[in-house]
């Protein structure tokens, strides 16, 4: 989880200054927008080598869900 949070903060500008935890409902943060979604998809492809569709990310309730989603595709 720590690595995922580091990757998000380093690559998704909108999340750079947001305090993120495993339970953060990131898709409902005020900073979350279409560019943050695109950046997250690109970061996952680049850092984890998997492609995840935007709807799947939109369905995540928190970062635990996102990590589970990434791991399920690897």
């Amino acid at each position, binding site marked *: 989880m720590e690595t995922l949070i580091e990757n998000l903060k380093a690559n998704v*500008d*909108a999340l*750079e200054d947001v305090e993120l935890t495993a339970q953060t409902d990131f898709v409902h943060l005020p*900073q979350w*927008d279409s*560019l*943050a979604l695109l950046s997250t998809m690109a970061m996952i492809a680049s850092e984890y080598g998997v492609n995840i569709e935007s709807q799947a990310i939109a369905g995540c309730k928190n970062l635990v869900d996102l990590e589970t989603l990434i791991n399920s595709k690897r």
Partner: protein
Amino acid sequence: MQKDLFSLEGKTVFITGGSSGIGEASAHECANAGARVIISGRNRERLDDVLASLKGEGHSALVADITCDADIERIIKELPALDGFAHCAGMTMNALLKFSNWQDIEAVLDTNLLCTIKLSQALIKQRKINKGGSMVYISSVLASVAFPGLSAYCASKAGMQGFVRVLAVEMAARQVRANTISPGSVQTPMTQAASEGRSEESIKADLAKYPLGYGVPQDIACAVRYFLADASRWVTGTDFVIDGGMLHYR
């Protein structure tokens, strides 16, 4: 007292092509406005001359060829966090398309467009541009005007504008602005070299297209200062034409 929105006091700005022409004038303008200026260029001697003549203290110079990947990598490591980036490095080549060789076309596109993208990408990947910072790129009115003999140059500057529009949107989350300036014909060593070999008649005909005559580097440097200053806080993704009235003159 009201803050001077055109001041660059406390800002660190990086200017490519800083050893001559628009880059040199921009370095002076930014230093005069209070910025700490870092200039880059290929020629150490010319950079040192400019550096020695800049007002204020704390300025520095980086010898670098932006068409060289290793140089980009090195300057990114050496640069501090920046509040402003003015990309003034560029080149031109004057030859009708059917007489142009491919190496020359590639060199123009590489220097003016691909390296612009490469350097910008490196700057933003390493988060070298502070929040609230500004990136300004010297394009050209020739991005939207057809000038025989400059097809690669026109294409490179039009490409730069497209690139910067997208950059502006992508960088907005960090409150970083990105804009282009499109000068008309400005008397610089680069444009003077490009007009060598042209007939006096053709030069006169070109000058006649400029109601206010040709520009000087300082005309553009003032706009660079504006875009790097807080005065342009709400300006991004735009192109500022500075051409002595040429574009709309018929």
